[in-house]
């Protein structure tokens, strides 16, 4: 056996000769490294330096701000990944941990993220007094909360649905838990994880912008970044600066998408389990660049190799225990029952504490008023989703039926979904102030500005995978008009629509907190609703009211999901699956 297999690694090549891809790759990589290093150093500056240098509205300062914002995003992504790999794995492997983690994650997914900020800002500022690091941590944590939960959930679900035969191979060959994690569990969960990461990007950008400039009572945060730039522009009524910020954000998201997510998605395709080559292949020029550039291969190769060696280390924590006979596994021993009791007691105690805390300031009358505000916001969400549906479902179907169009519109729609809509708010607010419109009605569309795109691109995706033979059959039998919609297309895209609408409505609840209160210079617009209630409480640093507002909104979101979306999703799964 003297032969080495071809291209086991492209490092096997005997000589290193730079190729044309290297010319592009080299400056890109090193430029990036230098900039990252410089910016990271600034982030650890003392707080006085940050507050002393007010946000400059000079467009030339924007690239620097945008970079800061992006770095926060990356840091949050790294934290989310770490959280996912540890917590989700723990939940999947331990029955007792699972009982706590899974419901908690499920609720956390529904809690409006901006609600956390008020608490975390105070917490992190006290953790690093006098350093900008605390403020940075708070901002990063805000983004973290917008992605970590559903990433962890996705990974947990992957771990729970590992293909049985692959699990048996891993056990049969006695892979250690560490090897198994990197050989089986992480790769299998990768496509879902990357997809969820991408889906939570919208939330991420939204909150990084919102969290850079926020004040909770006396604590004011103004971190250099795009969000603070916009806040300053609003305070100074500078519409031109807002336009510059929007432009900068467009560029940032475009770069992020091209440099990070396209390559990630294209790469994660490799981990899909179906053994037939799929028709649609994601492509990424960056990934091609990395794969083809010999320089990059030489530079990154050793890193990759080291990681591979580490992942393959046969670390074994304990001697391989014989597998429990899954057949007769004792369902719930007395330890489990005690554990259940402990959990119930803890939950009851926590609920009691929260109630006490809220009750220090708030009576039943206010509780009723908060509930009414909740219904006002609910009404807005329902009406807006309905409107978006009426507009975007036909539009999405029209586009989806024309592949040439779909190809062009789809990335735009995804892009729009990722764009933080709160950057555009000032433009709308200027219009409302100018024409003296009713904020109760006209602030509402802001809630769905960023989230409506989920409906559009999911519908387009649904039409794209709608079986051609069914379409041909419908055409053959000359189905047209309303019958065609009712019997052919709407049932076909329904599961996709529901997926999109769930994301859109979740995002709208979140956006309510920023959208129901808006200001332009000294003009302040407030709509009647739960979002405004939370926003005002945050502004005043009134913690009992923040807690109450968040709790009520969470309950609304959870009930909305359980009573409307989940049944619809089940129905779609059961009756309208196209396989």
């Amino acid at each position, binding site marked *: 056996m003297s032969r080495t297999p071809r291209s086991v690694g492209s490092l096997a090549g005997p000589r290193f000769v730079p190729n044309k891809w290297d010319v592009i790759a080299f400056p890109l990589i090193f430029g990036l490294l230098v900039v990252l290093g410089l910016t990271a150093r600034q982030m650890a500056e003392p707080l006085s330096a940050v507050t002393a240098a007010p946000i400059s509205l000079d467009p030339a300062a924007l690239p620097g701000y945008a970079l800061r914002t992006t770095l926060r995003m990356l840091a949050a992504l790294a934290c989310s990944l770490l959280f996912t790999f540890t917590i989700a794995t723990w939940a999947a492997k331990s029955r007792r941990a699972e009982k706590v983690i899974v419901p908690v994650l499920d609720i956390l997914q529904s809690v409006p993220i901006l609600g956390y900020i008020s608490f975390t800002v105070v917490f992190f500022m006290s953790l690093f007094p006098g350093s900008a690091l605390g403020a940075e941590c708070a901002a990063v944590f805000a983004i973290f909360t917008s992605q970590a939960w559903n990433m962890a959930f996705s990974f947990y679900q992957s771990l729970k649905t590992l293909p049985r035969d692959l699990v*048996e191979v891993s056990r049969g060959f006695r892979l250690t838990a560490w090897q198994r994690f990197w050989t089986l569990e992480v790769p299998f969960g990768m496509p879902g994880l990357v997809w969820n990461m991408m889906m939570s990007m919208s939330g991420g950008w939204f909150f990084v912008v919102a969290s850079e400039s926020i004040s909770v009572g006396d604590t004011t945060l103004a971190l250099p970044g795009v969000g603070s730039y916009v806040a300053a522009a609003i305070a100074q009524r500078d519409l031109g600066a807002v336009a510059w910020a929007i432009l900068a954000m467009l560029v940032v998201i475009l770069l992020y998408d091209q440099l990070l997510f396209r390559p990630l998605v294209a790469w994660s395709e490799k981990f899909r389990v179906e053994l037939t080559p799929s028709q649609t292949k994601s492509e990424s020029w960056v990934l091609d660049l990395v794969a083809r550039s010999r320089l990059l291969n030489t530079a990154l190769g050793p890193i990759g190799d080291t990681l591979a060696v580490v992942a393959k280390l046969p670390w074994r924590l304990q001697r391989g225990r014989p597998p429990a006979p899954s057949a*007769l596994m004792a369902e719930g021993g007395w330890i489990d029952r005690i554990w259940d009791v402990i959990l119930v007691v803890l939950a009851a105690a926590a609920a009691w504490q929260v109630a006490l805390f809220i009750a220090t300031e708030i009576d039943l009358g206010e509780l009723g008023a908060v509930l009414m505000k909740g219904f006002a916001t609910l009404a807005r969400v329902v009406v807006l989703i309905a409107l978006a549906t009426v507009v975007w479902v036909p539009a999405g179907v029209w586009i989806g039926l024309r592949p040439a169009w779909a190809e062009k519109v789809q990335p735009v729609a995804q892009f729009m979904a990722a764009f933080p809509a709160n950057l555009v708010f000032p433009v709308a607010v200027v219009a409302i102030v100018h024409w003296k419109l009713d904020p109760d009605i006209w602030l509402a569309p802001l809630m769905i500005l960023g989230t409506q795109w989920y409906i559009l691109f999911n519908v387009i995706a649904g039409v794209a995978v709608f079986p051609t033979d069914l379409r041909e059959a419908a055409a053959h039998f000359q189905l047209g008009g309303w019958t065609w919609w009712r019997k052919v297309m709407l049932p076909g895209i329904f599961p996709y629509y529901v997926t999109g609408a769930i994301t859109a409505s979740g995002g709208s609840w979140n956006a309510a907190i920023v959208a129901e209160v808006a200001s332009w210079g000294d003009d302040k617009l407030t709509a009647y609703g739960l979002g405004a209630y939370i926003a005002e409480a945050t502004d005043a640093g009134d913690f009992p009211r923040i807690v109450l507002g968040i709790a009520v909104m969470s309950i609304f979101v959870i009930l909305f999901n359980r009573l409307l979306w989940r049944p619809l999703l089940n129905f779609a799964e059961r009756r309208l699956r196209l396989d």
Partner: protein
Amino acid sequence: MAQTTAGNLLELRSVRQAFRKAGGGEHVVLDDVDLTLREGEIVGLLGRSGSGKSTMLRIVAGLARPSGGTANYRGQPLNGPTAGIAMVFQSFALFPWLTILENVELGLEAQGVPADERRKRALAAIDLIGLDGFESAYPKEVSGGMRQRVGFARALVVQPQILLMDEPFSALDVLTAETLRTDLLDLWVEGRMPIKSILMVTHNIEEAVQLCDRILIFSSNPGRVAHEMRVDLKHPRDRLDPAFRELVDEIYDLMTRRPGHRAGRAEAMPVATIGTPLPRISTNLLAGMIEEVAAAPYNGRAEISVLAEDLAYEIDDIFPVIETLQLLRFAELPEGEVVLTEAARRFADAEVDDRKRLFAEHLRHLPLAAHILRVLDERANHRAPFSRFKEELEDHMTEDYAERTLRAVIDWGRYAELFAYSEEDAALTIEDAA
């Protein structure tokens, strides 16, 4: 290495495997099974689906622990997977994100073999199994036959004493499977593989006779070793050899017998009860089988082995069909044969409506169908929820079987127009009341 019993690689004694059922009680998969594996032999576990033969293989692999009995490998108790036993899977079980070479190296990584040696040994296994040139390909790029070769290389590279095979050829087309079987047999006969013994699970009788030195025939519910049979034919074995055919016929014969009945006399009509699990066989298939047997050359009477070969059916395909015909009193199954009843002959010649009437008449005799009709009759609105019957069936069988059995009866009841079922509200209704 010193062994308690010379030449015995593996000894399983009185192995029992049972699962706790949802509503209490046990579902026994394996009951009192003995198995001995000696050096230099290929042993086949043959049986219908649900006979516990795959469970048996997983116990040997250390992937499942029996709820009773002992399992010893080389005189030592078997506690979980060991290095000396490797398995080949029906579904190939390859990691789609690893190249073929990486897939083969997997088992060596777990053992902590250094990278250089890993590579060397993996390439040797790849060479042995005929995969040269595919090392850097991903599993999805190669055909099913090549994928299973990867499965073999991956198992062989760890140099096991015992090779376990779980229906390794059943996911492949006939010709590919044949090539792979022959290649494997060549390697075995020439002693070019490191293994000492092979234990395989199959439901293909000819495959068992072609490969094995010893065949254990499992009966179902619960799984037991009903028969053991030696195959002394020399390799390579010719399928058309009369001695080969005789063995195949004999096994078919053994498998149609119910435990407790002695050979030699035609079996009386088996008595189905409400708790008899039913396979989900479409009425089209039942009708097709009746027509096939009714027509020339069988003219109402066929050897099961001949019929199976004619239709290219394996035992898991043919037995459920003919046994359903038997339950519905359209056929009798004396000693390895299927014989149509008078009613079945009439059915074969009848038009659609007459067929339905005839089928309905026979379906009423099936205890479960009769029970459903009675319940629906007694209820004022002539409807009953699916779950009512399913829960009743779960007293007798596992949840999966209950679901399948009820779905089967619903399919037949719909065809016979005896009762109707609405998926929307998951309820059964009497057909003429609807």
